[in-house]
């Protein structure tokens, strides 16, 4: 991941003085590069051997099965029989016309972008709060991170106890105030919103920890300088904290985005595999095992892979441009 040009990093670590900006950096790192390529040609070749274990694992466990998945997406396989036939692009054509795919596609975008946005805003807010020294800070931080460590499926089931209609924890509270119960997960945008929220609250800890770390890496002298200039807390946040956090934002956004777009367990636990709240992942599951249309499910899987790839690449490019701009 190209979060930061490495030369800059090496430089940042070496050159303590922030006063020697771009020009010096380019010259220096360029010079270094040339020197290295001349002197250490042999080492350079052999350093690539460090890739080997990773490449071996990826080829056996990811690439090869993925290629088979592509192959299956051109078949009518039912997922278990020993025979199937090729049916060309029929699965992809069906995918374009299938209203269930459209719904799942839109839901996936909501789950992915919605929880990424919420997790980052909330995570940053929590980090800003917990970056102060006060009583109970460690406890609060641990509590917020705790749900990350619970299996999402179990978390989903516990949250189902909150939102279910009968004996649901929310409706019990409403009932105590004499309010009629609400069918929280009934079809429609509310159910999608609740799933997004549950996912957000469970994994906000990841973003929070990344931002906490980011805040710690901002040298205190920047704030001191800003204070001397009489900058308000908001201006300090806007002009010191936020720009310095862009690399952290990149990491948090990428991790959250990929997690949100692949959302599966929470949806299954909260809403079952129904089509109205389906994400592409749950739709693939139902199509594959339920409808016994494994070939079609593979086609949806490949389309989803390409889609997530495109979204992440776009996000990555946008964020790294921001970084360079600082």
């Amino acid at each position, binding site marked *: 991941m190209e979060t930061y040009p490495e030369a800059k990093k090496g430089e940042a670590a070496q050159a303590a003085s922030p006063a020697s900006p771009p020009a010096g950096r380019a010259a220096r790192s360029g010079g270094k590069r040339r020197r290295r390529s001349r002197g250490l040609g042999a080492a350079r070749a052999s350093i690539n051997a460090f890739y*080997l274990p990773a490449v071996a694992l990826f080829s056996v466990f990811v690439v090869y099965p993925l290629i088979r998945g592509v192959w299956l997406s051109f078949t009518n396989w039912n997922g278990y029989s020993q025979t199937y036939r090729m049916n060309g692009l029929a699965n992809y054509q069906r995918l374009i016309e299938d209203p269930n795919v459209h719904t799942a596609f839109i839901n996936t975008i909501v789950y992915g972008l919605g929880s990424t946005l919420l997790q980052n805003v909330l995570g940053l807010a929590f980090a800003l709060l917990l970056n102060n020294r006060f009583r109970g800070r460690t406890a609060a931080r641990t509590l917020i991170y705790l749900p990350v460590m619970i299996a999402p499926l179990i978390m989903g089931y516990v949250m189902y106890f909150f939102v279910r209609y009968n004996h649901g924890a929310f409706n019990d509270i409403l009932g105590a105030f004499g309010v009629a119960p609400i069918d929280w997960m009934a*079809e429609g945008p509310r159910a999608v919103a609740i799933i997004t929220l549950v996912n957000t609250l469970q994994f906000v800890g990841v973003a929070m920890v990344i931002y906490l770390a980011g805040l710690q890496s901002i040298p205190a002298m920047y704030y001191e300088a800003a204070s001397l200039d009489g900058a308000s807390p908001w201006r300090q946040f806007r002009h010191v904290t936020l720009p310095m956090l862009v690399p952290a934002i990149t990491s948090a956004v990428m991790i959250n985005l990929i997690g949100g777009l692949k959302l599966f367990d929470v949806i299954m636990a909260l809403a*079952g595999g129904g089509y109205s709240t389906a994400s592409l992942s749950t739709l693939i599951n139902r199509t594959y095992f339920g409808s*016994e249309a494994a070939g079609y499910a593979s086609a949806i899987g490949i389309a989803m892979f390409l889609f997530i790839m495109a979204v992440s690449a776009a996000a990555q490019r946008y964020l790294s441009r921001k970084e360079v701009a600082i």
Partner: protein
Amino acid sequence: MKKLVLGGVAAAMVLSLTACGATNKDSGDGKDVTLTFSTNVVGEQATALEQAIKAFTTETGIKVDFSAPGESYEDLMKTKMAANELPDVFTTHGWSVARYSDYLAPVNDQPFFSKIADQIKPVITAENGDVYVLPIDQDIAGLVYNIDVLESAGVDVDSLTTWAKFGEALAAIKATGVTPLHMGGKDSWPIGQYGDWVGPSYFITDDASNQREALKSGTFDEATWQRVGGMMADWVQAGFFNEDALTADYASDAAAIAEGKSAFGFYGNSFIVDARATNPDAKLGMMPIPAASATDAPSLIAGERIAVGVWKDSPRKDAAFKLLNFLAKDENVQAIASASGNPAGLKGVTSDIGDIQTYIDKYSAVRTFPYFDREYLPSGMWDVMCATGSDILAQKPDAVQQAALTMQQNFKDKF
């Protein structure tokens, strides 16, 4: 240098791998056999199965790896079929013929074959006469009802011979303030139950006029399915289903009928066992499924439930059949069937299922039919039935017509 790196990497990999594998050495070292056994059931039924299997190991010395993965069993088995690598012995959850017959060894020459109960035998017999499983229990399913709720509404179960009369009873129960039907639609499969319970009365059970032949030869009449779906739509309209029919789960169905908050359940007798997990004193009964027309009579569903088969390509087939015959012993069949709350699948064995047995005896003369989707619909239709049913529950516009058309289209595609 490159070699050194490679060597180092390889050494590291090998080291860590052997470290992981070390604890796994005990599995198959030479002569003693270890069978694999997988089942879809969990809880008490799984415990009963496992105890029988432990007794088998004690007696024969043959080790058995017992696995009950739970909810994902069916997905797991599909994947194993795809890889053509199945457990030596496994339960078939109703699909011994329709889905697993290609993978199972026939049991026709086994000693227990002649003891298979008459009601279950046709259900598990393939067209060529082969039977592939030992049926430990059998599913004799009708409608489960709450005795107290029906009593307070003044409904007599024996008068509910047609859906029309059943509908009147639902209205009478609704009038007493109880929502008569509880649907756990979040789990999806309870919606399919409706199709399996109501479908036969329109398509199959009427000896005078039915579509058995048509379905078998690949014709699905969408107009008939509109009547099946239409009845559900009418019930939704009339408020006979719970408010949260699409977001409640199966567990809440069981809880509702146990607490007297619903009247009927479209489930087999294990539903009674599940309901009593939350309220052990629930007064529950079982009745035949009403007919669609006044000239037809109510019926029951006879299905395969806990049935055990042997993988035909198992390298340990002899031991596997030994296990099968061990499970077929009266005391084992009796113990497992009792835990499932169903009659035993072998003749001469009576399971200990208390009051449920009285209902089975009471209706022993009622005609039984196989599960609709397993017998008459191509594989993969079950999910379509669930999905289209959920649209009807959600009162989507034209859901009934759409459901029938979708069913017909999928039937054609998958046949």
